[in-house]
């Protein structure tokens, strides 16, 4: 059987990595258990910063889960053979990251054991409730899509299934953005630019994750990625990074123009301590400028540069989400515009937050889940791209 498999994993390394992934998942689950037992008092979250590090991890994973499907869409819907060969792997990654992200979100609830209530008592006006349907529908749609691609008799259906997934993920990422854009009173949120911004950002982050996974698989299997494919995918990732930066810039520039928002922008871009630092260094420099140099500069652009660029894009992604989610809550609500306010409940003051170990471990546990699903998935099923190289062999 073994020689029929398209994979030639370095078996020992594979088991070590799976065990490591399993350990990270277990530690994450233990962290969640501690949070449930002691309450959120052991996290850094409080009544002002109500969503913290777990949400940064979860939203990154969910956004990337949607974006990685771009590879599938370009293949199945727009008929690009280089991407078509990669569509199953993209589908697997999407399911894996969605599972990881949702697990983190669920385990961070104050009462995770009641999560079933979200299904039995459904509030139709809640975008959170809509997202429950969007996420479960996404699982179903992607599984169906994978089936049409992997089962020969279903091949004819793979294009319509791919189309469904394309539409569904657009709605899903819109839904994720809308969670924030519906928050009318929060100065960081409450704007309709967030859903499209999340969609474009998802393309960049999804592509970055895909590059890393693809390169790892190829390296393990001693396969060499076709240069033509590498170049195409690399340039596309660069384009997505630029587009995402454009949306982020537009978001801040619009805010800067509104007098009522300038204090918030001053905080998030200049005076807010860790938040401006993460924005300018973490997101703009590490997450955009460096990757763009690695992608487009003629001296770089080879496999290692692309992997490095992808890693930097992911670091930039976490930075941006931290600034948006945590920084957005740290800035005080404007309850009495025009007044200086103070109270025993932090009114008028910047909220304090430092991530605690249980939160970070829970978040990493989500990444561990995504890793495990991917690693086991590509081992037991045929997810590795197979194609005839376009670049002539030297």
């Amino acid at each position, binding site marked *: 059987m073994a020689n029929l498999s398209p994979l030639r994993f370095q078996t020992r390394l594979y088991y070590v990595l799976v065990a490591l992934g399993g350990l990270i998942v277990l530690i994450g689950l233990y962290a969640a258990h501690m949070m449930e037992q002691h309450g*959120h008092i052991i996290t850094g979250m409080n009544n002002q910063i109500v969503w913290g590090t777990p949400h940064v991890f979860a939203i990154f994973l969910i956004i990337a889960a949607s974006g990685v499907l771009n590879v599938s869409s370009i293949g199945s819907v727009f008929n690009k053979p280089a991407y078509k060969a990669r569509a199953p792997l993209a589908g697997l990654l999407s399911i894996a990251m969605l599972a990881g992200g949702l697990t983190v979100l669920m385990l961070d*609830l*104050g009462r995770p054991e*009641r999560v079933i209530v979200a299904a039995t008592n*459904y509030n139709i006006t809640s975008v959170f409730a809509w997202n429950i349907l969007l996420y479960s529908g996404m699982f179903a749609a992607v599984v169906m899509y994978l089936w049409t691609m992997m089962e020969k008799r279903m091949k004819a259906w793979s294009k319509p299934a791919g189309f469904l997934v394309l539409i569904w993920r657009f709605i899903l990422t819109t839904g994720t953005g809308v969670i924030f854009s519906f928050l009318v009173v929060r100065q960081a949120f409450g704007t309709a630019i967030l859903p499209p911004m999340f969609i474009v950002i998802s393309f960049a982050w999804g592509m970055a994750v895909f590059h890393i996974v693809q390169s790892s698989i190829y390296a393990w299997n001693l396969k060499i990625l076709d240069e033509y494919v590498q170049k195409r995918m690399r340039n596309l990732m660069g384009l997505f990074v630029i587009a995402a930066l454009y949306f982020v810039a537009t978001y801040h520039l619009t805010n800067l123009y509104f007098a009522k928002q300038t204090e918030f922008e001053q905080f998030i871009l200049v005076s807010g301590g860790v938040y401006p630092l993460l924005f300018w260094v973490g997101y703009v420099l590490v997450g955009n400028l460096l990757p763009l140099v690695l992608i487009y500069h003629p001296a770089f652009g080879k496999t290692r540069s692309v992997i490095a660029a992808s890693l930097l894009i992911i670091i930039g992604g976490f930075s941006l989400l931290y600034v948006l989610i945590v920084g957005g809550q740290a800035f005080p609500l404007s309850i009495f515009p025009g007044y200086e306010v103070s*109270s025993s409940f932090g009114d008028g003051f910047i909220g304090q937050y430092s991530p605690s170990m249980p939160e970070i471990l829970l978040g990493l546990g989500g990444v561990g889940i995504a890793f495990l699903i991917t690693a086991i998935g590509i081992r037991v099923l045929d997810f590795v791209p197979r194609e005839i190289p376009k670049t002539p062999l030297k």
Partner: protein
Amino acid sequence: MNDTNVQRRQFLKTSVGAAAVAIAPGMLLFDMAHGKTEAVSNKVRWGMLIDTANCADGCNDCVNACNKENGLSGGLSPTDSQWIRKIELKDKLTGRELSLPMMCQHCENPPCVDVCPTGASFGRADGIVLVDKHLCIGCRYCMMACPYKARSFVHEALHDQKPDVPRGKGTVESCTMCVHRVDKGLQPACAEACPNKSILFGNLNDPESEISRKIRTVASIQVRADLGLNTGVRYQGL
């Protein structure tokens, strides 16, 4: 009348009597447990008018009364629950200073109710906004959505709770307008405790109530009225 008929009537009488004796205490207890059987209706809209001119700087009587009534610890750390708090304000341009109590504004269109995925946040017909502690899953989306920072999350296990005020670790809570007192015909604890009678509680839907008469004659505003939430709590002198 023959004997059989008499006996039968006797039997029926005794049975009905016995049934009544058996059921009555149960009915009585049921009634006691449920309080008023009459459902709340939207004929009433409970509200408050807070006179900021009379609200003394440094006075915390309303906050203390709320803590006592609802079994809150009174702790002031960022993870402690504060259902009502005093805010000190200073007009940035004119320098005018004032002090006022801030709590759930019991909106007619509450953002917390809109965003709650399970319907745990709900508005009663009489305008009081509450959290059903059995449905709340602790997602904290309502805290993100509330314009008044009125909600607290229970970050750790609670002890010595009040039987009338259900609370629970891992759920969100806020001012209930002392619904357990209001349903008994009493005033909310904060309104009763205010030494200057700065918190006027009453039925906004009754044109003859004191609060309705007052808001017809004095200038009062809703905080962040621009949001269009139609709050049940109004402020005078702001």
